């Protein structure tokens, strides 16, 4: 509602165009557009297969010990205070020990920086890396928050492909071709959002060696750590910190199904002091000290959350995710115009390719998803949101009944829009 008074007063302030450009890349924006096109008269439940948050579903509720840990933290009254910039000591120590469980060495608590979710770690890291003229290598397809934050910090982005014909492995030749003397880092998300693959140990080592040769950091986004339910076990890039400096990102959000708690970490693995000597570590510390922190009362609960959660919780939840992935795989094969080149083996997503030539009056992935939302109250993310036009990203970590119903609706939609046979 615009009301101007009389002479249309001139004000000196206005929008920041950099923000506008950066946020239009976000998944939130795409989902909002789809949700706004839902048919309000459709009485059916909206089925959300576009986002990345299974926590609303009863089958993916968190472990009660985690809830108890935070209640205890609140009642103790010891954690209502400001936190030190990198987090309170007991939280840093607990995370260091947790991550070291699967490693051949011990991570030092001093290298652990607690952040308000993995998202804040991305924000801080990209910001600290954005020196004038620098560029960063991102995978395609990707998690677009990296793109948004890079755009916002005016850090140039160059994309290397994840190869669908090679189980989504990194195109290392492309990485070498893209890098120049202003390239500062490459990002790897493992287990992979959005592709659903898990990178092998051998491949991770090759990536580390390539990055080292190019003189760049590896940003290892392992927010889906341990979400590996296929053949390949999860291996952390931390194992290769001796070859190349690694910044490891993670959070409790996915493994404990609590993204709303906003507790993540950024770990600098730098045994040869490369990050330190180059001055980058100081910059990172400077940005951290100017930024908001994870809520202290949640940090205070971390030792108990990590310490008291049993392996059975993790394995039973992983089994549920695997079950969902199985159903997803089966159902996709039944739908003619959709192919999945690599069955998901990790995370909670899979990328499927659209064969538009089999469809009538659907122009592209956005059009597909828009009409799907409108006609079937089913939300799926258009692949362009993650960098692959005419693909779709399907989230399978939802209640089984919803998943099955969702694919049924998808099938109906596709049938309805299929090109008629002569």
């Amino acid at each position: 509602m615009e009301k101007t008074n009389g002479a249309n007063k001139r004000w000196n302030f206005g929008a920041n165009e950099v923000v506008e450009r950066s946020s239009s890349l976000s998944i939130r924006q795409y989902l909002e557009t789809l949700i706004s096109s839902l048919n309000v008269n459709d009485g059916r439940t909206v089925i959300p297969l576009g986002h990345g948050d299974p926590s609303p579903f009863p089958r993916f509720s968190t472990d009660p010990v985690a809830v108890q840990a935070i209640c205890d933290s609140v009642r103790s009254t010891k954690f209502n205070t400001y936190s030190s910039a990198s987090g309170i000591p007991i939280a840093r120590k607990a995370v260091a020990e947790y991550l070291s469980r699967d490693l051949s060495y011990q991570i030092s608590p001093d290298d652990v920086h607690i952040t308000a979710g993995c998202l804040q770690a991305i924000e801080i890291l990209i910001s600290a890396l954005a020196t004038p003229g620098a560029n960063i290598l991102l995978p395609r397809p990707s998690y677009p928050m990296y793109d948004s934050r890079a755009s916002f910090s005016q850090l140039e982005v160059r994309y290397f492909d994840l190869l669908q014909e090679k189980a989504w492995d990194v195109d290392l030749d492309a990485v070498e071709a893209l890098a120049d003397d202003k390239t500062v880092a490459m990002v790897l998300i493992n287990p992979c959002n959005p592709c659903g693959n898990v990178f092998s140990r051998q491949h991770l080592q090759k990536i580390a060696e390539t990055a080292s040769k190019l003189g760049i950091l590896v940003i290892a986004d392992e927010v889906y750590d341990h979400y590996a339910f296929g053949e390949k076990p999860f291996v952390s890039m931390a194992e290769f910190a001796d070859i190349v400096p690694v910044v490891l990102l993670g959070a409790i959000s996915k493994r404990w199904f609590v993204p709303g708690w906003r507790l993540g970490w950024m770990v600098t693995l730098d045994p040869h002091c490369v990050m330190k000597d180059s001055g980058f570590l100081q910059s990172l510390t400077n940005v951290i000290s100017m930024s908001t922190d994870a809520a202290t009362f949640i940090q205070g609960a971390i030792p108990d959350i990590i310490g008291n959660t049993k392996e059975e919780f993790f394995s039973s939840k992983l089994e549920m995710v695997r079950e969902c992935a199985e159903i997803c795989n089966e159902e996709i094969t039944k739908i003619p115009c959709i192919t999945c080149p690599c069955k998901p083996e990790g995370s909670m997503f899979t990328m499927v390719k659209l064969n538009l030539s089999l469809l009538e009056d659907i122009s592209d992935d956005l059009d597909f998803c828009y009409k799907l939302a409108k006609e079937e109250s089913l939300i799926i993310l258009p692949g362009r949101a993650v960098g692959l036009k005419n693909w779709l990203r399907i989230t399978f970590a939802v209640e089984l009944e919803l998943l099955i119903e969702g694919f049924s609706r998808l099938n109906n939609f596709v049938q309805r829009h299929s090109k008629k046979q002569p």
Partner: protein
Amino acid sequence: MSEEQQPHANLVVPTFRTEKEPKTQTQNGNGRSVWRFGGSEKAAEASTVTLRGVIFMLFDNCSKDVKKTVLPLGHGDPSVYSCFRTCIEAEDAVVDVLRSGKGNSYGPGAGIPPARRAVADYLNGDLPNKLSPDDIFLTAGCNQGIEIVFESLARPSANILLPRPGFPHYDARAVYSGLEIRKFDLLPDREWEIDLEGVESIADENTVAIVVINPNNPCGNVYSHDHLKKVAETARKLGIMVITDEVYDRTIFGDNPFVPMGKFASIVPVLTLGGISKGWVVPGWKLGWIALNDPEGVFEYTKVTQSIKQNLDITPDPSTIIQVALPEILEKADKKFFAKKNKILKHNVDLVCDRLKDIPCVVCPKKPESCTYLLTKLELSLLENIKDDIDFCVKLAREENLVLLPGEALGLKNWMRITIGVEAHMLEDALERLKGFCARHAKKTETETESLEALKL
């Protein structure tokens, strides 16, 4: 005592170097790679203006040899002390949400609707132009509110007006966003009122906003209705918005009533920053807000609102737990709890001012009526061999293990800030040590000098 058990464990600040690190490309041991990432000058510059560096340096000067506990009265976090424990209703609200399982999911960037509505209701009590939930945006603490607003306003050549003395986080974030800083004075002989003539002289066509902190940190005054109106009128004349930081709106213990700047929103667009951190003494819960008081829709048509919303989409959110608990926390706001807290602070202020009567070189010209700090002026002419406020504070730390903040860190040279949001006995102890220190460093009078000379013969 382990680090976690020390009462001030969370007040200890990490190592922090203030000098710029050179941007280098180093070779590793066998010269195989040249590493291409390096330091950020922008980050280095911004970080030099935070308090952490000064505070850490002062802690560094304390020593075990001085057999007294370290008294950290240079910066503040009252939540560390049990006398300031938050109210049980707030704790209950959070625990209830946790048990319900309703705080575990992502929320929308702007905040969940019930929380936004609760903040609008909370603020509307004192406002003629009512806020709708759409005018409220939740942030991960008031400090993040500052980050978001500055990032939303940043444009090439833009400048922002900040108060001196001020709150250094504003400076750090302004530098980091690329906003040029211009300082206006708060006038000590006018009860810290804003030097409006100064404001008009430094503003130009690239000025986007003026930041007003009310109730004022660090000065502790509460601005009058008339003065705030004048500020609004000045801002309007200059074509700039008022960003008002009202995070201390529930930490008032003097006679002047709090008047929200939003009252003058029909004169000038007002962007209010607030939160529960200070009122409820829960800075660790990280819940703040941005409220757009703007009946004329200026923020909307200049697209500032859009920038803020878009920024919120790509930045971290406050925890869903506290968002879901917020309506209950705000609605059950207990007047008795606030009164008790403020009474303790008033008592502490009176205690300090009383003791200062015996310390002529440290003067408190105006008792604070709000916030958790007390500003004093140093009469250096009464002291021997102390060249300025930093020198005073360093020597004080070294000799007495007492850390007070030199005013230089806030833009007020030769003043000193004492944190009063602590337990009373700490202030008693601190003032004793301060008295001893000042007596030791007092300039000898002429007769004293003669006596000393006589003794030497």
